[in-house]
């Protein structure tokens, strides 16, 4: 019968499709979904790293976390970093993308040059910048003194350490997002910009009324990814400051790492990671909703 034959054919097509996506689903399941489930379940135990076991403690870890001033401090540090890095890095990436998108000879050399930080290991970048920030012999103070500015303590100062770390992060990542903005700029039809020019709009007006609105989706993507990266920052505090001085650069991921791997408290650390995961998901959803509303 024709309907049975078409049903069988559909099943066969579906099976072929499933078999194609099965490897990817298996990888995601093993390396992402399973660890995430483990993370949530371990958060309800007092799992000790060395002992390799733990007992169920209910919501104790979550309750203690909310009363832990160091964890709350780490959340504050993380969000301060994100609130600075996201707009500054996005703005730099966008402005440089517009500049690099000009039809000028030799610009491709600069595009390659500016992209080097993006392809360099973050650990190497952090180590180099730590040396540059050294108050005694670092390049930063040498440059400051050469223009008559007093030496700074940078990573040794409670007031300056977080900004110093933020600048390192921005230097490392802005060029990656510049490339994403460039590809977005290339999608803007030339005719629209030409029409705006004919209508008498100058470059600044074109940028704000044509370019920016047409880059909305790309900007949303850049902001979302930068926010997630900023909230998950670990390497700079780990390599440059050990979270100091006095916890001023102790991001949540760095604090969680210390709880798990220095103090062996994997249960509480898992609980904190779960909370951070939920926070990142909520922020991403909010950003997505705002971005989608604007598109409509």
């Amino acid at each position, binding site marked *: 019968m024709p309907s049975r034959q078409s049903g069988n054919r559909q099943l066969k097509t579906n099976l072929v499709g499933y078999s194609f996506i099965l490897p990817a689903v298996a990888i995601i399941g093993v390396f992402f979904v399973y660890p995430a489930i483990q993370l949530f379940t371990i958060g309800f135990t007092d799992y000790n790293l*060395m002992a*390799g076991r733990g007992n169920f403690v209910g919501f104790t870890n979550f309750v203690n976390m909310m009363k832990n001033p160091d964890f709350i401090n780490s959340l504050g540090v993380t969000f301060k970093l994100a609130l600075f890095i996201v707009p500054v890095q996005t703005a730099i990436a966008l402005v440089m993308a517009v500049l690099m998108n000009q039809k000028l000879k030799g610009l491709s050399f600069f595009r390659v040059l500016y992209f080097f930080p993006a392809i360099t290991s973050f650990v190497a970048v952090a180590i180099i910048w730590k040396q540059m920030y*050294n*108050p*005694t012999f670092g390049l930063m103070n040498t440059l400051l003194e050469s223009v008559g500015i007093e030496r700074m303590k940078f990573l040794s100062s409670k007031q300056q350490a977080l900004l110093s770390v933020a600048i390192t992060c921005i230097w490392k990542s802005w060029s990656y997002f510049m490339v994403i903005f460039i590809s977005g700029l290339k999608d803007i039809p030339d005719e629209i910009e030409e029409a705006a020019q004919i209508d008498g709009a100058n470059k600044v007006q074109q940028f704000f009324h044509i370019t920016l609105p047409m880059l909305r989706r790309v900007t949303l993507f850049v902001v979302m990814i930068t926010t997630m990266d900023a909230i998950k920052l670990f390497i700079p505090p780990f390599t440059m400051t050990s979270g100091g*001085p*006095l916890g001023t650069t102790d991001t949540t991921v760095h604090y969680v790492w210390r709880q798990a791997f*220095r*103090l062996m408290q994997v249960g509480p650390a898992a609980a904190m990671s779960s909370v951070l995961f939920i926070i990142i998901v909520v922020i991403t959803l909010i950003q997505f909703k705002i971005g989608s509303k604007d598109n409509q």
Partner: protein
Amino acid sequence: MKRTLGLILVTMLLVPMLLTPALGEQKITITIASFPDQPKASLVAAIDAAQLDFDVEIIEYPQNEYENKIKMAFGAGNATDLVLIDGPNTASYAATGVLEPLDAYWDKADFEDLVASAQSTATWNGQIWVAPLNESNTVLFYNKKVFDELGIVAPTKVDEAWTFEQLLEVCEKVTIPGQRYAIQPQMFSMANKNEGQTYTQMLWLWMGGGEVIAPDGSTATGYFDSEESKAGISFYADLFNKGYATTEDIVNAFETDRVVMWVNGPWAIGNWRRDFPDVQWGATPMPRGARSASGSGSWNIGMSASSKNKAEAWKVIEAITGKQGQTIWCEETMNTPARASVLEALDMYKEYPFDIINEQMIKTSMARPSTPAYPQISEALMDCFAEVAFGEDVDEAVAKATQKMNDALAAVK
């Protein structure tokens, strides 16, 4: 014919497969986890002298990541046969069941050859868990060139050690504001966070007359937040407030004449001889506040409970920490022996500056608290001292640290 050939082929395949496990079983290699600050060549020298009939492999992990690596290895069940363990962490490792008790292996008379502080470090809950590589102590090293220029004569006997007031006078004399600091009162600059900081910062609390936690490990209230402890912590804070010490991260501060005095241990002498032979240094006993105090406790070797070759592993421990091995190790590294017999036998420990160290070990050395919560205690103490160094209120910093310590102690009850 075909059958015969087949039989021969199968035999040729099976025999090596059956033999190989048997051959493999005979080759024993004992693995030791270590890190760069423990000179590998000196460990090897001590092991070679014992002429063991099996192999020993030393696996080095990066310094700052050593503790993390071995903890993760224990958790994953693939720890080395032997691990180096910092003395005050013995209880926290033993409490999780990852170490093999050594009572069954160690002859009692030989164990009693250890100095008292080393015996104390090696035991917890009535059992022996580790064997000491060496003991440790702390002195106040000083820049001999600066002292000679300014005519400052440092005492060499514990009974003549500077008081806190006298130390402040010296600090005032040697400080050049903005250029040269009087003292680095802890092992590393404030940019570092490791047990070396606690080891030296705790001294100031003790010299103030305080204690960290109760002797039974039940609480820090009344101990860490006592007036005596706060007196010691306040003196430490004042060194920074008065400009005699700095929170700035100055690399090789003592060796480059940026800091004149430095609280550190005798291993610094070995480091200078190797890396900074031109440094002119002197050593004087630790100063005294309400009482005298100096450090103790160093690195030890523990046996993994999961080791498959415990008898051989014990032989390696004996090779390194026995009389012969410890003599070799201490002569090469300039560390202080943990064995009384070795201390007595080696002439260099009767000469300056080791005579100061010997005298302090007997008269003023104090052991860090022995508790499974020690990692948390250490971190809370380090944070407290860092806060006061940066100018935070002493009472608030001490109260916060006391609470953290109490939470940690309650969790391991």
